[in-house]
């Protein structure tokens, strides 16, 4: 009677999902997060959910854990005091921050630049140089100065240490030596070296990324240790897997070494889950839409795999860490609508947050939000209580939206519709960034919608982009926790290569990839993955010589020695041409080689059911007036828990669920598929 469990720790709620391996049943639970001591909320959620699923903590086999602890630490600047040891002459690397100021012209007048996460007070430069590009030592490391700096910083009260020396990506010897000295002088201090965290050129980004790692480390170490202890106390023998920003998994131990990899741990789960669900349905290419209270995350999945990026951004800081390529826009249910001086209507990025929340929450919010607009239009029917907990104040919603209507001289319904149109457009803009701007045609993609508010807006978005089918998975409000269950143990191993096709051949690249594969294999073994379950992806990051792009070109390693680099070049040129409309008569440069090592885990099995009758009337609970495109339609309301595979619903229709509401637009058809997804397509008239 084994169970697996996914837990997603958000800023407000902790979502838990339990999978029963015998019955293939999923149990969902939501508890309040405990930001002041995050492990407590997790334990409570795990205990509550296991009880609800008729099992116990001791019966859990696999645990999958994603968390916004690191994200929030970065946004709220509540991490550790970090000491930085860097090359002398370059102590101001974080302070000068590559000189960047925001647009447009005069952007500097309004720029708010946060202090570096390692203060100049806690930064020490040491002598010792490595030459470039050959990586030779040209001046020895001043070990006495290092020793003094370490003692000094420890005495000053730093809680962790970063070592980031110029050109260390070419030769890590000096950084490694500094780490040894730290171990001798201050054995208690966690220390990271930049050549391990980001073995790539670019001193600012490498230093920043490593400092972020150390900024998060003390808290993450404490948090994960407490969690492990509490789980052990509760009798757990389950394997703990922590979800990385790229959607892969690593052990708790690995997570305490590289917490920077958790920066986007939360949002990655939803994307991975959506990719799994869509692939299972035979729709391997989808866009994902995760709309919550304050923001929306969108991404692109091609061939069942989420696109990933090496540039991760949290707030002002953009650093080098692999993550699912999630584009975030400040558009959510709580986004506030305002009429600007010029008369234009803006929705978001400012949000009413959880407190006071939208006007309809009746907690004193007066400004109109997206949720209020949905209430005004009847998209959230009387029968629904938000989050199953709250009675809606419809009058307050109407009054709030009326302020926009007054300023624009429209009806309240028109104003509400305009708010929805604008917020949808903001999300549309975000979806374009991940699709059309990268050369993908959204009409060739499906759309998977989740998050509390996603299923309410997704049909309108699918329509404007022509992205069908629209898939609303079961439990859209806990999609990240579900996604964790579908993740694999994963880590990537990369090396700066910077070779052109004139200088190397397929054999050279093959050898280098095999070396990286060996490293990846060792790591998987250390994570406890048996060799039979190891799998590897091979990637060359390519560009024309001297360009700045890095296009990830997948490599079929078995053919590499025979075909040489020609296939890599052809693939690169085709992608470059598709995305930018031109190619160049310039040599191909391989900037980086990467091997992604994966260990397959089976956290969840998606149950397939027989399709039944098309008639959904057993699930119909009400009929309401709902406003669509200038008219009010009599619209049936369905209870999702009563809908069965095979049921067909003609739009307009509203489907209510525990944690979200699905809007089916007029002239659309929704069917319940064999995996309990709601699948929405255009009706025959369109």
């Amino acid at each position, binding site marked *: 009677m084994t169970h697996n469990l996914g837990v997603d720790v958000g800023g407000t709620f902790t979502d838990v999902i339990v999978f029963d391996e015998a019955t293939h049943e999923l149990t969902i639970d939501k508890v309040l997060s405990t930001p002041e001591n995050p492990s407590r909320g997790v334990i409570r959620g795990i205990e509550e959910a296991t009880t609800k699923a008729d099992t116990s903590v001791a019966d859990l086999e696999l645990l999958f854990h994603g968390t916004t602890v690191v994200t929030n630490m970065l946004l709220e600047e509540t991490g550790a005091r970090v000491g930085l040891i860097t090359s002398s002459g370059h102590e101001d690397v974080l302070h*000068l921050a590559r000189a960047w100021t925001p647009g447009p012209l005069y952007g500097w007048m309004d720029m708010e630049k946060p202090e570096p996460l390692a203060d100049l007070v806690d930064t020490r430069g040491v002598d010792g140089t490595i030459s470039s590009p050959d990586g030779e030592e040209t001046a020895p490391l001043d070990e006495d100065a290092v020793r003094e700096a370490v003692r000094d910083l420890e005495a000053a009260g730093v809680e962790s240490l970063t070592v980031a020396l110029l050109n260390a990506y070419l030769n890590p010897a000096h950084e490694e030596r500094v780490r040894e000295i730290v171990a001798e002088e201050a054995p208690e201090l966690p220390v990271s070296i930049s050549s391990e965290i980001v073995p790539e050129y670019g001193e600012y980004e490498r230093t920043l990324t490593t400092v972020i790692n150390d900024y998060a480390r003390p808290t993450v170490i404490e948090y994960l240790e407490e969690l492990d202890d509490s789980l052990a106390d509760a009798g757990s023998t389950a394997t703990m897997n922590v979800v990385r920003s790229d959607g892969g998994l690593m052990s708790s131990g690995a997570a305490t070494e590289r917490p920077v990899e958790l920066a986007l741990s939360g949002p990655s789960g939803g994307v991975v889950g959506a990719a799994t669900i869509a692939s299972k349905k035979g729709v391997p290419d989808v866009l994902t839409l995760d709309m919550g209270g304050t923001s929306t995350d969108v991404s692109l999945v091609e061939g069942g795999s989420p696109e990933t990026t090496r540039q991760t951004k949290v707030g002002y800081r953009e650093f080098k860490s692999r993550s699912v390529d999630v584009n975030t826009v400040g558009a959510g249910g709580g986004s506030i609508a305002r009429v600007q001086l010029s008369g234009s209507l803006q929705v978001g990025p400012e949000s009413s947050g959880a407190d006071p929340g939208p006007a309809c929450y009746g907690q004193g919010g007066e400004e109109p939000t997206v949720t209020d607009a949905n209430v005004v239009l009847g998209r959230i029917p009387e029968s629904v209580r938000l989050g199953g907990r709250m009675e809606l104040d419809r009058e307050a919603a109407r009054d709030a939206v009326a302020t926009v209507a007054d300023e624009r001289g429209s009806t309240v319904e028109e104003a509400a519709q305009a708010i929805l149109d604008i917020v949808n457009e903001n999300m549309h803009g975000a979806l374009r960034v991940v699709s059309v701007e990268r050369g993908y045609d959204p009409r060739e993609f499906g759309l998977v919608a989740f998050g509390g508010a996603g299923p309410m807006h997704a049909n309108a978005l699918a329509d404007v982009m022509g992205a069908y089918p629209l898939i609303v998975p079961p439990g859209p409000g806990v999609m990240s926790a579900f996604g964790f269950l579908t993740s694999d143990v994963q880590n990537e191993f990369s090396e700066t290569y910077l070779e052109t096709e004139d200088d190397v051949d397929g054999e050279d690249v093959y050898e280098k990839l095999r070396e990286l594969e060996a490293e990846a294999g060792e790591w998987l073994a250390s994570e406890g993955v048996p060799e039979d379950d190891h799998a590897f992806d091979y990637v060359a990051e390519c560009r024309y010589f001297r360009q700045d792009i890095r296009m990830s070109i997948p490599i079929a390693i078995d053919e590499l020695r025979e075909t040489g680099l020609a296939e890599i070049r052809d693939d690169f040129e085709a992608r470059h041409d598709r995305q930018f409309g031109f190619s160049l008569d310039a040599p191909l440069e391989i900037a980086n080689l990467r091997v992604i090592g994966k260990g397959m885990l089976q956290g969840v099995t998606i149950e397939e059911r027989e399709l039944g009758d098309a008639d959904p009337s057993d699930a119909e609970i009400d009929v309401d007036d709902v406003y669509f495109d200038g008219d009010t339609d009599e619209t049936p309301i369905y209870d999702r828990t009563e809908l069965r595979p095979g049921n067909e619903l003609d739009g307009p229709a509203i489907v209510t669920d525990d944690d979200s509401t699905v809007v089916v637009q007029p002239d659309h058809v929704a069917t319940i598929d064999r995996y309990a997804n709601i699948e929405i397509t255009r009706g025959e008239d369109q």
Partner: protein
Amino acid sequence: MSDTATPDFVGDHDVDQTTLDIIESTLSNTRHEMDRVVETTAISPVIREQSDQFPLIADAQGRMVMGQFGSAIDTILENSPFDRDDLNDGDVIATNDPYACAGAVSHTPDMLLLRPIFYEGDLVGFSSQWGNLMDVGGKTPGSMPVQATTIFEEGMRLPPVKLYKEGEFDSELLETFAHNTRLPEHAEADIKALAAGTKAAETRVHELCDRFGKETYVEACDAILDRTRAGMIDLIHEFVPEGERYTFEDYVDDDGMGNGPIKLHLEIYREGDTVYLDWTGTDEQVPGTVNFLLNEQMFKMFTGVFLIMAFDPLLTFNDGYYDLFEVTLPQGSVVQPEFPAALGNRLPLMARQFDVLQATFSKLIDGFSVAGSYGTSPNLVYAGTDSEGNDFQMLEILYGGIPARPGGDGLDGHSWWPLFRTVPAEYQEAYYPLTIDEYSTRADTGGAGEFRGGHGITKVYTFEAEGAITFQDDRAHTYPWGVDGGKHAQTSEKKLLRTDGTEEELPSKVENVPVSAGDKLVFSTAGGGGLGDPLERDPAVVAKEVERGLVTESAASDEYGVVLADDGGVDEAATADRREELRSERDEPAAFDYGPLPDDADLEERIAAERREFEDRHD
């Protein structure tokens, strides 16, 4: 001169507000998409690492609806061998001749591409993108000579010609151009990248026309222009007082050939809805390359953007407000030089023009002040032949002190121009024969003030191959001013340390100075001015900055009157005394602190002497 009649886009617009908002935000995203396309596909570090390129989307009449630089499409077409009627779907016009586009690009390395956008056979707009090429030929690598007196020495110029004709790429034309540059592959790739940027805009405009209909799109462009114009009228009425005339004067050091200082003089006043900006009183054009061909439309854009960013940052800026500004640019002055004046190093004048605009507005607008900045975009070219016999050419832009701002300190070593970034030292060391020994903040170089001006930076290069350096900077003789009691900043400095132990101070603008392996260049940029009385600055912040090494202990005491205790904290009592002492010693602070400038004649002689001595040494 702008047309004083009300523009034709003003009036009622038959387009619903939501559609209008959607079209506006799509165009806004498109402008950023154009940048991203160019940045990622170009191969020059100055574009890919420093983001030196500028997109715009215009309506069918050539008025910029979205972008950041204003449009000169009319002028470009006037100076081309073809008429508006000769434009066809798929054409792309290219030019890098400042005199053929009224200064829309202001020196020859900037290549501008212009694409008419057609929908169902009708012209519905234009997209345009320009970027700084690494080299366009001429007498020095990088094509920005310091010692030139005509534009003919600044490289190959394309008049407005069609690079693509109905979608067909004219490879012979491009090859002819590239052939005249030192880095032909760079030129070809970068120009193609710019064309890809304009294509991205065309695709988006087509999608908008598909989605909303051509008429709606065209109407929406009018409405967006109208909306911005109306917003600007409100801003002008609220913030620009009517009646009084305000003037400000400041100087660029020199033209790199011993002539200076070069005066800029601006007068601003308002009558009704119209704001008058008059550059009469500005010095005549100079022999050297610092002349700045200021495009009138562009200056209107700068002025509008200043008001928008200061008071209503959400307002879209575009050509809609052009009739509200009336600009006078005296012919033959440094801001309107006559052909064939050399233009290569127009950055000091461009930057100073912003300083003067800021200062005049600071006088004019109650309770709003900004100080003076580091004064140009300092740039350095290092070219030569490496040990393996390969030619190399490095171009880098450097940064200095951002002025103190309303309600905040200036930033240390940041860019006044948006979105620029430094080239990583590790990139420079990997691709060019040099090492970067230091890249640091220059303590105490930002002007003291309640809000401190940003500090300049010092970058130390050790060259590893024989070659020559060319650079331009400014603010070596004049100081970035402080305002409202804030102090002036420190000047820039350049020093060459030879392997034989000799040391040479260099002027701020030099061309092809030979360097050998082992020579070091110490390149220090100016700070930004301070704002408000330094004796009002929070002592705890001063103490923190001493601890961080950004302000010295002596400056804390002498400039800020802050005395530190042994533990580095503020000695409250001693600080109160010290501040009292400084207050009693000083004169009533002037509105602007220009620093210890000699009089004009002395300054002129000093600048000429510096150049004479430099030339003598390098004969």
